[in-house]
């Protein structure tokens, strides 16, 4: 490898920057186009229904499993501390707070991005490289209203609903682990949750889930629609899509956390 001159290094940075800017701009335009379709609502009812079913059913099992394990891990990690201070009454609070506000939405978001986001990119990307999107345009069907809006609705709504399910399962998993590992009875765990955790904590987490849902929908659709280059291109798009989703989840989480305090 030859040494890079400062100029070359700078131009490489510039190229990378332009690439990111292009993607961000593309996503913003996509989001705008999708939102515009809601005023007045223009969408394909059947396609939306089909997507809701597909997204929900496909990701429900994995969300439940992840949430159960997440709740359990949170209890294990706070276990040593709780045992040290003999503060068994705080276990429900510690695990519950962490799960509802942070770890729940993040873990469910990451899983959802892997399951649904990656699948969305792969599907749209395949349609793109096999010219199906152009075929739709040739039939005077707008790909945005026909393909993207239903997926957008399905992803955002299901992410929101599944986070509610996930939060509940995580608490169950936490309570069970608390009983097995630390001998904290589920009723003590529950009362600790009820006493210390405010509704606001739940809503905070659900708001995060909503924004993560929007991020996953926009990112995965954008990378799907800009795929080129056959089978290799589809793989590359899926890779970019899940990576961008993960970064966005953490960045959005930080800003929401710091602004809402």
């Amino acid at each position, binding site marked *: 490898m030859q040494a890079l001159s400062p100029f070359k290094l700078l131009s490489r940075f510039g190229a990378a920057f332009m690439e990111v800017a292009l993607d961000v701009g593309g996503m913003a335009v996509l989001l705008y186009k999708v939102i515009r379709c809601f005023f007045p609502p223009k969408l394909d009812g059947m396609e939306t229904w089909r997507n809701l079913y597909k997204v929900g059913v496909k990701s429900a099992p*994995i969300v439940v*499993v*992840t949430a159960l*394990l*997440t709740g*359990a*891990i949170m209890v*294990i*990690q706070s*276990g*040593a*501390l709780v*045992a040290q201070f003999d503060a068994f009454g*705080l276990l429900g609070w510690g695990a519950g*707070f*962490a799960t509802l*506000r*942070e770890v729940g939405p993040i*873990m469910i978001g*990451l*899983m959802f*991005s*892997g*399951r649904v986001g*990656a*699948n969305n*990119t*792969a*599907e749209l*990307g*395949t349609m793109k*490289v*096999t010219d199906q999107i152009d075929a739709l345009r040739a039939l005077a069907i707008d790909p945005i209203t026909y393909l993207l809006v239903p997926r957008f609705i399905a992803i955002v709504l299901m992410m929101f609903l599944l986070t509610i399910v996930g939060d509940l399962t995580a608490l169950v998993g936490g309570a069970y682990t608390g009983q097995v*590992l630390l001998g904290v009875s589920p009723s003590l765990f529950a009362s600790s949750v009820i006493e210390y955790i405010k509704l606001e904590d739940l809503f905070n987490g659900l708001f995060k889930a909503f924004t993560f849902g929007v991020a996953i929908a926009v990112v995965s659709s954008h990378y799907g629609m800009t795929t080129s280059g*056959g*089978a*290799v*291109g*589809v*793989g*590359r798009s*899926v*890779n970019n899509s*899940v*990576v961008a989703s*993960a*970064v966005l989840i*953490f*960045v959005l*989480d*930080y800003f929401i*956390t*710091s602004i809402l*305090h």
Partner: protein
Amino acid sequence: MTKHTQAYVAALSPTQRRIAQLGVIFVPIVTQVTEILRVGSLAFYYAFKKPIRWREVVQQSFFIGNRSLAFVMIVLGFLGMILIFQSGFQAKRIVGDLQGMGALYLQLLFREFAPTVTALMLATRVGTGIAAEIGSMVVTEQVDALRMNNAEPIQYLVVPRLLASIVMTFVLSCVALCVAFGTGMFVANTVFEVNVATFYNTSLLEWGDLIIFSLKALAYGITIPIIASQAGLSAFGGSEGVGTATTMAVVNASLAVTILDFVLSGVGYIFFFS
């Protein structure tokens, strides 16, 4: 379902049919797990057999590191700030004292967040990368061409990625730990006015934390490339097949990381921390 199976299912009683339907859920899971174990055991068999393509191992390590360093640093940097934000406000409300925060945070980073979140990120970045690469090679018959030339695909493709991933997952977890601790310290200092020297407190660290950290990094480093390679090798069809394989890789790898995290955290708690 084929016609044959349909006729068979129609002849069952309602209870039997319900039991039979369980197969629809479990059969794919069991076949996939056995397939992953098969690829894994073959990879280990060849990892201890000559020749190993060391140049390829180095190149793959470079790819993994180069592709995911910035990604892991950004994510863990933000995670560090988030964690300190949340715990700082809670600690202030309930305990009222923030002096011990740094020590606890460092312990939690070692035991949980640094290795696990890094692994989740590698599952998305490296996992999809490996699955897409091997998957495209399968659908364009390159894997068949390897076999025709007596180059066993698992030895030729999977082993270098496995060895590279074991090393790089550990290295990246260490980087992640430093970054997350650094950004956490920054927030603690600027928002909660905790002194840097107070925050940097290693008094709670034990050997157990280090062992759990290394065990987790090792386990994740082994699991991610094997699961991703299996997903790639099972690709069929054209671009659609590659898409399915990459999706399968992220989901399976992230799920495996979560399950391993649960098991290893439990083991750590029972052996070291209770």
